[in-house]
């Protein structure tokens, strides 16, 4: 399958599995992981979950604060 043909649902479920594996192994997730999952949730219409993920990204990596605040603001606008 071409990447652009994969639905957000199809992309989100392996990421959720990865996230649970990382949490149970007490391992950190890589940069951008929560941000991307958040964006997939947004595309699926789950804005509350998206917000949580954007905030997790910001907490884990303060470097992302400006960008995450922008994505969070966009969330409220749409």
């Amino acid at each position, binding site marked *: 399958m071409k*990447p652009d043909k994969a639905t957000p649902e199809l992309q989100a479920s392996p990421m959720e599995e990865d996230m649970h594996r990382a949490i149970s192994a007490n391992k950190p997730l*890589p940069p*951008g992981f929560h*941000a*991307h999952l958040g964006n997939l949730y947004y595309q699926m219409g789950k804005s509350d979950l998206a917000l949580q993920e954007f905030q997790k990204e910001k907490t884990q990596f303060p*470097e992302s*604060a*400006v*960008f995450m605040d922008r994505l969070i603001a966009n969330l409220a606008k749409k």
Partner: protein
Amino acid sequence: MKTLFLNIGILAGMLALTGCVTNKPYDYTNFRAHPPRSILVLPPINQSTDVRGTYSYLSTVTRPLAEMGYYVFPVTEVDALMKENGLPTAGEMRGVSLDKIGEIIGADSVLYVTLKKYGSKYEIITSVTTVAADAKLVDVKTGLTLWEGSTIVQQSSGDSGGSIIGALITAAVTQIVNSATDPAHDASSMANFQLFTPKDHGLLYGPYFPENRKK
């Protein structure tokens, strides 16, 4: 004394001949003066003839940078934001000023990548996959170039089992498989590893790199 000078002469000559391998370490003065914590990777400018190049390559850049200890902005979300703001192509995204990048994304540094070659070519008895790229890391606040590098990866289908007919068939089959699966994508991963990690020429470690793993 004469032989000493002669030896030095020979040595210097050898160094000059092997120049591209043993050239002097990269000058990290700017890098050390403005060590970035975060890197924004913009979609590469694609100079190859394969349209898949930009996004295939872009998807392989995050991992090596993150493993070197940097916060790497999520490439998909950055790309989407740029597109929403009227910048549909890699060329237009490259034109965004550092001030704007600082204001909108809050990045410390930007990595500009130019994809020189990307793709597979059928060359009678082999199928050759080439990925070549130039990259430049720029400090957002000062505009200084922190680091520059270039890389090339070439992989050939090679193995033919000896006979020329076998070679032709192998190459043709490899070419067909290649067009379906895009081996240049895998070659891109290797190209990035080569680009960022060589000692004295790669990137310095970022803030998230574990102390105990530093060489």
